C-alpha cells in the first residue's frame, strides 16, 4: 500500500469515533465495567478485565522484528498495538481500529499528548452525526477519548489521527472507530506513561510476522 497525500487527507477527515459498533444491551454493557477508578481528579468506570478475552489484555510477548526500542507498531488487521522493548519483546495491547473506509496507515511521531482531553468532533463528523455537540469537555463521562490522547503528527503536521481511550470496552478487538486507535482506558493511561514526545509510530495493515502467505508484499512498512 502506498501512502499518499490523499491518505493524509482521509486520515485527517476520518477522525475520532463515536463508534459504529452496536452497543450491547444495557445490562450487558454494564458488565464490562467494575467499580470506579480515580485519575488526576477524574473518577471513571474501571474496565472489568474478567470479562475481556485474554488476547486483548495488556501482556508482554515475543516480537521478532527490527524496530528500535521505544517504537510503537500497530497491526490494524489483528487489532494489536505493540510497544517495542529490549531483547525481542514487546508490550502488546488490544485495540479497536477504524472500520472499513476509515483506516489509516503510515509512519508518524507522537508530537503531543494530553490528560482527559476535550473532544471537538470534526466538522465532517458533525455533518454525518448532526446530533453531536460542538465539543465535549475533558473528563466528561460522554467523552469518547477517555483519560488520554496521543496525537500523531507527520513532518510536524497533525495527521488527525490519535491513540486514545474509549467509552466502549467491548469495541476493543474490533473495527469500530472512525479511524483512531482506541484502547482500554487503563491501557491508554499506561501507554501515555511509556511514550515520550517524539516516539516513532508505524501503523501497518499487519506486521510482517502476521502476513497471510498471499499478501506478503503488503507487509512491508508503508512509506
Amino acid at each position, binding site marked *: 500500500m502506498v501512502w499518499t497525500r490523499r491518505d493524509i487527507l482521509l486520515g485527517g477527515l476520518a477522525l475520532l469515533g463515536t463508534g459504529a459498533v452496536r452497543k450491547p444491551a444495557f445490562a450487558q454493557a454494564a458488565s464490562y465495567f467494575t467499580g470506579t477508578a480515580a485519575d488526576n481528579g477524574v473518577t471513571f468506570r474501571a474496565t472489568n478485565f474478567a470479562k475481556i478475552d485474554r488476547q486483548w489484555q495488556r501482556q508482554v510477548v515475543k516480537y521478532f522484528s527490527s524496530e528500535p526500542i521505544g517504537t510503537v507498531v500497530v497491526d490494524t488487521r489483528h487489532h494489536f498495538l505493540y510497544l517495542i522493548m529490549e531483547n525481542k519483546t514487546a508490550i502488546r495491547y488490544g485495540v479497536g481500529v477504524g472500520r472499513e473506509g476509515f483506516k489509516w496507515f503510515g509512519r508518524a511521531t507522537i508530537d503531543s499528548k494530553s490528560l482527559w482531553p476535550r473532544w471537538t468532533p470534526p466538522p465532517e463528523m458533525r455533518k454525518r452525526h448532526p446530533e453531536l455537540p460542538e465539543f465535549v469537555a475533558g473528563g466528561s463521562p460522554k467523552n469518547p477519548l477517555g483519560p488520554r490522547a496521543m496525537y500523531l503528527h507527520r513532518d510536524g503536521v497533525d495527521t488527525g489521527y490519535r491513540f486514545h481511550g474509549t467509552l466502549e470496552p467491548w469495541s476493543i478487538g474490533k473495527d469500530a472507530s472512525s479511524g483512531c486507535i482506541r484502547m482500554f482506558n487503563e491501557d491508554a493511561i499506561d501507554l501515555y506513561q511509556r511514550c*515520550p514526545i517524539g516516539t516513532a509510530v508505524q501503523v501497518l495493515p499487519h506486521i510482517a510476522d502476521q502476513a497471510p502467505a498471499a499478501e506478503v508484499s503488503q507487509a512491508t512498512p508503508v512509506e
Partner: protein
Amino acid sequence: MSGYTRRLAAAAMLLALTACTTTDIASVEEPPAAPLTGQTNDPAPGFESVKAGSEEDFILNVGRRIYFTQDSAKLDSVAMTTLDNQAAWLNRNPAWLIKLQGFADDSGSVSKMKSLSQQRADAAMVYLASKGVDPKRMWAKGYGEDREVRDCTERSCKVQNRRVVANLRTEPDAT
C-alpha cells in the same frame, strides 16, 4: 525467583565469566537475555502468568522507564507519575532493591553526558525516597551515552536515550 530473573541472572554470570574489560561493565549491569526462539505473539519468557510482586509485574504494570527533555535532569509530571507508581509498588514489595540507571544523549562532551545521566538517576532516587522508599534499598548510577538506542530517526532515538531505567535487584552491586 521468577523465570525471567533467573534467565537474566544466568546470562549475567555467563558475562561475568567472559567479560574482562571495563567497557563491558554496562552490559553486565543489564545483561542481554539468551536468544529467543519461537514466534511473535508467544508470551515472553516469564510472562506466561504474571504474579503480583514479581519483576514481570513491575515491568508490565508499573514500567521501568522515565524520560527527560533535552539537557535536563528535571522530572516532569509524566515522570513523577511513573515514579509514584514505582514507589507504591516498592513499598508494597519491600524485599526488592532497586538500581536506577541514568542515560544521556544530549549536547555536550562525554563527561558532561556522564554527569547529566548521573543527575537524572539521582533525581529519580531522591523522588522515590520522598515517597517513602528506604534510601538503603536504592542506588543510582549514570552511564552517559552507553547503550544508546540507535537505528531510528535522530529525534525518536534521542528521546529514548534521555532516560532512567529502574532495575529490580535482589542484592547490591558488588563493588
